[in-house]
Every structure is written in C-alpha cells, then in structure tokens.
C-alpha cells in the first residue's frame, strides 16, 4: 500500500498538476480564440529553457568568479544578465504605461532595448558583490531555490514571447477559418522547438546536475520529495488565483463572456483584443510554469513540451474544452490514470500496463470521450 502511495500516487498527482496547468491554457485559448493551440507544449518547453538559461547565467557569474582559475569576460557576464534585465525593463515599461503591454511601437521597443542593456550593468555588479559568498566552500545554492528564484522571470519572458507570437502568427488570421490558426500554431511549435535546439542543443539538461533529492520524511512512512511539495503548492495557489481571476475580476468575467459568445462580447463594447491579450498572459504564463515545474521533476529537453501535448489535449477534452475547471480535473485524471496504470495492483509482479504504453491511456481516453461525450465531463464546446 505504501509502495502505491509513495511511488505511484504522489508522482501521479505531480504529473496531474503539470497536465492541469497546461490544459487550462489549451481550454481557454480554444474557447476564446476558437482554435486548438498546437504550440502550447512548446511554450512549456520555452518556459523551462528560459529558466535553465537564467540559472546558467547566474552560476556563470557567481561561481566562476569565485574560482581564481576561471575568468569570465565582462561581456559574457553582461549577456548572461540580459534576460533578467529584459524582464525588469518590461515591468518598468508596464508600470510607466499604465495600460500594460501596448502594441509594439518603435518607441516602446527602443525603450525596452535601451532599458534592458542599461539594467544589465547594475545586475552584473550586484552579482559580483556576491562573489565573496560563493568563495566560501560551504556555500551552495539549493537546486529548488534556484529554480523558484528564476521562475517569475521565466514566466514574464514566456508571456512576452507568446504575445509576440500572437502578434506575428495568429493575429493576422484572427478572422480566418480555425484550421488556418491550427496549422499556424503547428508551424509555431516547430519554430519554438528549433529555437531551443539552436541555443541549447539537443542533449538532456537538468536544473540540478549532480544533485540528489532526498525525500522528506515528515509523516513517516510517507515519503515525499521536497520539489513535489513545491509543485503541489504552486499548482494549488495558481488554481485559486485563476478562480479569483475568472469570477471576481472584470477581465476574467470578460474572458468568460467572450468564451460564451464572442460576437455578443463585441456588440456589448468589450475590447476583445484586450481579452485576447489576457488569455495569452494566463495561458502562456501557466504553460511556462508547467514547463519549469516539469523541468524540476524530469530532464529539460527540447521535446519535453511536445511530448506533453497529447495528454494535455486529452485532459482539456475530458474536462470539456472551454471549461478551465474541467481542465484541472481532466489533468489530474489523465495524470493519475497514466501513472497508476503502471502499478501491479497485486495482480502479478508485472505492471498492469507496461510503462512504455502509458501515453496510450491518454490517447484512449481522448478517443473515447470524442466518440461518446465530445462536450466533455463539464459541458464544454464540441471540438
């Protein structure tokens, strides 16, 4: 029984949380923009790799500086701090422009570029100041801490990236048939994956090389790994935040209104482009977080998001496309079914379903749902 909980149920919940975070985005984008976003998995990958790149950047400065045998040129340090300063520049730009992200005008772009470079200098300086800390041999940054520290930066960059992608590849097709958008998103997925491979290579990477996670034994004999607690905690907080957004805020209600009836939303005077923008912010933000959380638990590799696409769609369809709450349940169910199917269930010593086939479970659920209940468990839209 303990074996079931420690080695199957907890990982199942972790996987379910990650699926749920991805499926919410798929579901929202489908109901508001009316297309199946095939590049959603690769947005997860992008999020995971942005975080990875940032961790490399920080380590480059702090640790290489501490080692007298290694010298890092100032230019290299500056470049490694650019993503951080880009986020700060974007946030400053948003603060100055009360209306949030505006269209990409010349002046705004210039402001962002100049601000980014200017902000990178103090960041390098600040990190250099930390060098004495790193010189201390006992000093070690906790792997989880590093990931959680760069997570907000990765989310902002991924959201901005999604906004840029929307502007370049989806907005021109907004009034075309949905299939055009689907194909466009397929192209975007390939572009994103190639970008990752170009900058980071095709090897498996990890946020914590040579770091062994020891399970916490809080409630013996239950064993839970620290990072899994972060993943649960983060998912629960995000779900509550999403619920608050959708039911309590003007923007969230407008998102639901537009998902109900986009034409009526337009007639009512709702700024639909603004709603679309917020849909991308929520969808891409959650995807980036899902990617980073997945990266904490599994190797960071260029196909990590693409491999997630099928179960995420299965989760969104199971819950009912357009129903974010359904997507959460769907994610947990699909994740649970995939992991628990590999347990032996005391029938024999063998797993019930061999591990290599567990993806087929998601596929099976999706096919069965599409045949018998295409609107999903929670009355979504029919695909």
């Amino acid at each position: 029984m303990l074996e079931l909980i420690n080695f199957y149920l907890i990982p199942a919940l972790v996987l379910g949380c990650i699926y749920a975070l991805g499926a919410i985005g798929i579901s929202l984008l489908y109901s508001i923009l009316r297309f199946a976003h095939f590049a959603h998995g690769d947005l997860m990958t992008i999020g995971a790799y942005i975080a990875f790149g940032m961790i490399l950047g920080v380590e480059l400065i702090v640790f290489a500086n501490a080692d007298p045998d290694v010298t890092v040129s100032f230019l290299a340090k500056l470049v490694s701090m650019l993503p951080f300063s880009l986020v700060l520049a974007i946030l400053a730009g948003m603060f100055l422009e009360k209306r949030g992200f505006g269209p990409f005008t010349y002046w705004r772009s210039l402001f962002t570029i100049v601000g980014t470079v200017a902000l990178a200098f103090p960041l390098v300086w600040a990190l250099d100041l930390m060098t004495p800390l790193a010189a201390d041999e006992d000093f070690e940054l906790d792997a989880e801490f590093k990931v959680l520290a760069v997570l907000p930066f990765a989310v902002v960059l991924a959201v901005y990236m999604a906004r840029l992608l929307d502007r370049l590849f989806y907005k021109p097709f907004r009034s075309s048939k949905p299939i055009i958008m689907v194909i466009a998103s397929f192209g975007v997925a390939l572009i994103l994956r190639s970008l990752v491979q170009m900058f980071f290579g095709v090897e498996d990477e990890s946020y914590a090389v040579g770091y062994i996670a020891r399970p916490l034994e809080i409630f013996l004999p239950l064993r839970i790994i620290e990072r899994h607690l972060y993943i649960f905690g983060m998912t629960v907080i995000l779900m509550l935040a999403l619920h608050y957004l959708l039911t309590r805020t003007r923007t969230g209600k407008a998102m639901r209104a537009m998902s109900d009836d986009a034409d009526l939303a337009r007639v009512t005077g709702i700024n639909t482009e603004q709603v679309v923008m917020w849909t991308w912010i929520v969808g891409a933000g959650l995807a980036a977080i899902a990617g980073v959380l997945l990266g904490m638990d599994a190797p960071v590799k260029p196909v990590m998001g693409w491999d997630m696409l099928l179960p995420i769609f299965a989760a969104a369809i199971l819950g009912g496309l357009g129903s974010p709450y359904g997507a959460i349940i769907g994610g947990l169910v699909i994740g649970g079914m995939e992991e628990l199917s590999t347990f032996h269930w005391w029938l024999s010593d063998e797993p019930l379903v061999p591990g290599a086939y567990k993806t087929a479970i998601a596929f099976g659920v999706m096919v069965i749902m599409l045949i018998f209940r295409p609107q999903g468990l929670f009355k979504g839209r029919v695909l």
Partner: protein
Amino acid sequence: MLSATGMIGGYGGADILHGLDVEVSEKEIVVIIGSNGAGKSTAMKAIFGLVPLREGRVTLKGEDITNAPPDELVPRGMAYVPQERNIFPSLTVHENLEMGAYIRQDNFGPVLDRVYDLFPALQEKRKQAAGELSGGQRQMVAFGRALMTEPDLLLLDEPTAGLSPLVMGEIFEKIIDVNKSGVSILMVEQNARHALQIADRGYVLATGQNLYIDTGASLLANPEVAESFLGGKRADA
C-alpha cells in the same frame, strides 16, 4: 440623434439594403416593420457597424459613424440588443449586467440599481446563470445589459420574438418606461400592430427600401399598410 441616409450594403457583396433612410430624433420611439427578408434586421446591423455599408452615410449626434465598429459606437452612447444570442448564458444575471458596463471606468452601482428597479425579477435571480432563465427573463437581461452604459440611443432587434403575449406586453411597457427616462429607441418588430401603437414614427420596409414613413398612428390607420403588414383590414385600429 441618428440619421442614416441612402444606405446600400449587405453581406459579402450581395446588397440587401437598397438606399434606405432611417432617422431617429431625440427621445423618439421609432419602429421598423416589414415582411420577412425586407432588410429590417440588416438595417439595424448596418447602423451598428455589423454589416458593411457600400454607400450611404450614418451620423450620430451630427458625427459621422458610417461603418464604425461597435466598440467605437458603445462609448458614443449607442447600445444594441441582438435578436437572438443576446445574453452570456454561463454568466450569472449580475455578471451579464456587469459586462454591459465593461466600458465604464466609473462606479456603475447607481445604474445597476436602476436596472434592477426596472426589472425586479432580475434582482431575485441575480446569482443564477442567465442561460437557465425563461425567454422573457433572458430578454430582460439583454435589455438591462444594454442599459448599463446609459445609452442615448437603444437599438432593439425584435425584442418580443418568441415571447408569450403576456410577457410581450410587459416588455413593451418596459420599452415605454426606458423611453420616458430619455432614451431614444429604434426597434425592429414582427409584432407590428403592437409596436406601432407605442411608436412615435414608423418605417415600413420592402426589399431594402422605404415603402412608407409616417407617424405610428397614421401607419396604423393606413388601409394599405394594414392589409399588407398588419394582418388584414382593421380600420378601427
């Protein structure tokens, strides 16, 4: 208030309107009637920027609004209630009304109270999903939603379609109430006789053109109109 002259246009190249004029003065109720396919709803949509006009000119309070999209017209004091699919079914009644006030940056509490005063039935059901309401109540939600911006001109596309005579009478009463509070109303109605009774002026449309333009009472008294559009002769009306 509103002046539309020589409207020519329609969907995807096929003209439905062939030089139509519509005028609404301050605080008037204007009714557009006509047989099916005469272009009544299309005229309404063209004024609200939902159907492109190839020719013609639409002005609101003297400003040119020809082919302006709805999100520009709503802030200028126009509101539109479509014939069907005019509520957000999964949102609560209260949220539907809030969405009506989406463009408002100020506190719309007093307006909300007034809408609830006008439709007490909605107050009771404010937490219920709008999609679960009866036809008449849905119509009230749609009507209330459009009033949330405190428009000067309200466009109603067949507000009583598919409603029982009792509910229909209620809706017409509300239209008069709203009009008395200073809102000009332009509406398309199938229920021509009833609509003309409350109308200051009426337009009778045929094949996308004006057939008759007159006061509501004169149109009711006009035997030709009575025969073709009011379902038979009734000189006593």
